[in-house]
């Protein structure tokens, strides 16, 4: 089976959890929300919420912005942009093929 590009695998993992999917849904209006609003009522501790949010940050699905005593969560869904993911995957494949071409033509003496 096709090996997933690292970024795609990260995105899949990030979205593969019900708490994280719910957090993303709450942000889907496009408005930033404080952490408390994003994670309330999910049955997770504040520490648990920060861990989940870090997974989403690492996948570049959200970003965090400290604002006074609160931290606001912004949706930054470029990783979910199908077109960008596709182009990135095509580029990754070309880079691998061009490396192989280099090895082939430079090792013939």
């Amino acid at each position, binding site marked *: *089976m*096709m090996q*997933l590009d690292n970024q*795609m695998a990260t995105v*899949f993992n990030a*979205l*593969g959890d019900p708490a994280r*999917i*719910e957090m*993303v*849904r709450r942000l*889907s209006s496009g408005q930033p929300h404080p952490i408390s609003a994003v994670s309330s009522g999910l049955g997770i501790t504040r520490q648990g919420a920060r861990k989940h949010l870090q997974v989403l940050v690492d996948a570049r699905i959200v970003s965090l912005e400290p604002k006074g005593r609160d931290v606001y969560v912004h949706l930054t869904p470029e990783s*979910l*942009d*199908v*077109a960008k*993911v*596709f*182009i990135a*995957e*095509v*580029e990754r*494949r*070309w*880079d691998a*093929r*061009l490396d*192989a*071409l*280099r*090895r*082939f*033509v*430079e090792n*013939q003496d």
Partner: protein
Amino acid sequence: MNTMIQDTIRRELVLRAPKERVFQAIADPTKIVSWFPDRVEGKMAKGERSVFDFSDFGKVAIHVVASDPSDYFAYRWVPSIGASEEDPLKQANTLVEFRLEEVSDGTKLTLTESGFASLPKEVIEKSLSDNNEGWDIMMARLEKYMAA
């Protein structure tokens, strides 16, 4: 029309090898199998359809549009993630171009693949879901929750 803003992928590299050798590596079906498809059906001649066989990843038809030793080789195919043996000229396709230029260290190769902006969105989505188990499930789940 799709959401693709970027139309072209471009890569430039200098290979420490003579231009003629690089061109043969790209245009000769007996040589391209050393670094690209595992097998080639057809002669990769200009104006003809050939097939790149990537074994587990399937077969992809190409239509060669130019083969000018040792400067330029170009073909059209259906974008590289999906596999399709159908005639690329009869569907949305991209143009792959290899340009070679002699430089002091060897050969400068410029690769471009263009035409992404004109690919229908469905082609891109199908290509991603055909080749990434769970992609379509993941996207369906996300859409469902976004709409709730």
